């Protein structure tokens, strides 16, 4: 992270944004989630969002446990449902910056229906999906983003299922800002998160993380450094155009902002449509 630190405002001290009294944290050595957490907190700092105005909603899994370490209003909810809680919270409290931290299983499997409808509604929420291709918290089962052929505890002979392209799903479902980054590109990831939070609508950010301890070990993917370097070599930071025509394959990542639209944000659309029912706005 030394490279990325040079681009940060001098005053940034990550400890200001963490509940350090909960340390040591639970994350395994080499887990990419810590980089994602740092990028999120750096982005919050850069945007000047106060911790009191920040609400972080997370689900179940390794990604879900991250919320607790953030010194903000944190809500650790049931498996797959953080987008539903976040939707209610944002509609009730438009003044809050609402960030969802979720994982590939939480967001795409048990929460898949909530994801597509959250994208469709386009509420002003940022969804950070940490994709480590596996159910780490439960011991390493296959997930909807596990690459074909990979070994997990529930695919002992190799995964026979194809994997989801989360960003294509989010784009197709109507998220008005969709992007992807790998943890190797921490400054770019931070910038992408800044963009997603600033964007007035649903921002979906897929973070290609790595699970060294469980997934990497079982599949002989080497150290965390090796896994991250391998992600880097598969990175394709070109535009998203044409990407949908090619079969999606994990490890062959288009990165950066992949799609963007200026679709009306949900709460604004709701207020506009219901204006006739609000006497005070009948001027």
């Amino acid at each position, binding site marked *: 992270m030394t490279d990325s630190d040079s681009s940060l405002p001098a005053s940034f001290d990550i400890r200001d944004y963490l509940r350090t009294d909960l340390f040591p944290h639970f994350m395994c050595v080499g887990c990419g989630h810590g980089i994602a957490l740092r990028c999120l907190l750096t982005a919050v700092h850069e945007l000047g969002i106060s911790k009191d105005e920040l609400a972080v909603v997370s689900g179940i899994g390794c990604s879900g446990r991250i919320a607790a370490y953030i010194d903000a209003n944190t809500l650790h909810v049931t498996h797959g449902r953080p987008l539903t809680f976040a939707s209610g*919270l944002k509609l*009730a409290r438009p003044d809050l910056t609402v960030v969802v931290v979720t994982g590939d299983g939480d967001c795409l499997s048990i929460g898949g229906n909530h994801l597509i409808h959250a994208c469709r509604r386009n509420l002003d929420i940022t969804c950070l999906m940490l994709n480590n291709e596996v159910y780490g918290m439960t011991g390493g089962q296959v997930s909807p983003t596990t690459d074909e052929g990979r070994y997990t505890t529930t695919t002992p002979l190799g995964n026979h299922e194809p994997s989801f392209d989360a960003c294509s799903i989010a784009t197709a479902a109507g998220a008005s800002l969709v992007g992807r980054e790998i943890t190797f590109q921490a400054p770019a990831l931070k910038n992408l998160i800044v963009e997603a939070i600033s964007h007035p609508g649903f921002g979906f950010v897929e973070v290609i993380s790595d699970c060294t301890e469980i997934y990497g070990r079982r599949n002989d993917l080497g150290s965390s450094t090796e896994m991250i370097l391998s992600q880097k070599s598969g990175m394709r930071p070109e535009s998203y155009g044409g990407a949908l025509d090619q079969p999606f394959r994990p490890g062959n990542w288009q990165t950066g902002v992949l799609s963007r639209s200026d679709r009306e944000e949900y709460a604004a659309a709701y207020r506009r449509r219901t204006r006739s029912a609000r006497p005070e706005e009948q001027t």
Partner: protein
Amino acid sequence: MASDSSSGERQNLQGNVACALGAIAAGCRFYAGYPITPSSEIAEQMAARLPKVDGVFVQMEDEIASIGAILGASVGGVKSMTATSGPGFSLMQEGLGYASQAEIPCVIIDVMRGGPSTGMPTRPSQGDVMQARWGSHGDRPVIALAPASVGEVFEQMLRAFNLSETLRTPVVVLIDEAIAHLSETIDLSSSMPTPLASRKVATGDVAGFLPYAATDDGVPAMQCPGDGYRSHMTGLTHGEDGFPTQDPATVERVMRQLLGKLDRNMEQIECFETLECDDVDVLVVAYGITARAARRAVVSARERGLRAGLLRPITLWPFPERRFRELASSANTVLIPEMNAGQLCVELERLCPHPGPVVRLNRIDGECISPRQILEQIEKLHAHD
């Protein structure tokens, strides 16, 4: 036109409409739901009415999302509710458990219909009584209300929100389909003015704030995003600080506090009605629409010189155990008419102070139990004396 002036404030109101009006009168400003017969009119009413009071209505993708959204909104400090029926109520059990564990106020309407599964969507049933009590996993405090008329639906909505807010717990309102779709003449202006309650708000130093600290009434004060406390909320078993713990002593302490908070506030929770209960041979225990039939039956029985009485729980869970035991101890027989295969009766068999007969009268054909059926049973039980 002969207008409202001739009828004063009296109006014919459908149960589901009264439910929505009661919710808004109680201060509900957020509704998330998913369409399901026979509850959909509640959503339709809320969709039309909430914008007028600067509230928000959102139709979610399913019932799991609906309860998630209302919990999120409630955490944000807004009184929130959803409405559903049996199949959707099943899906909400996950969120209900979360609300109990994290102590988030919310109101869930279950307009009961015939089951199991898709069952009979337009037919009445009282099949969700035990699901309301035990539907979500683990031990948790449960409050369920069972109004018996359209006017009472309105009143109980006010109570539901008040209980939910003051006790920081989900409150389920079980409405019979036959009441949800019944229109009755009610006068909202004459219904008892109920002071509205709001959750106890956290005050004091931010440093060292314990979001689940023990209090005299067992209900912790609630923080709200933006108030500076920045606390953590989780469905994991947590200590007073809100963070997950598996320390046995802490878990024991916080679970005792969670499970004990209803007992400590039973005076405001317990609610029942009795009729002709001074000298009872046959005690009828009935709730919801069945209690209306039972009332008619008890009146008819008394006219025939039969000593029948009615205990009608309005708060169904927790059940008014003490009063039931008192009445049952002097009665020869307890008769429990229910539109299910026998649910509340299991609880009453357990509570009955003597081995005297607890007699079930069950109807599972999608029709309401009639006063005549109950009267016939009362007569039969008297004949056996």
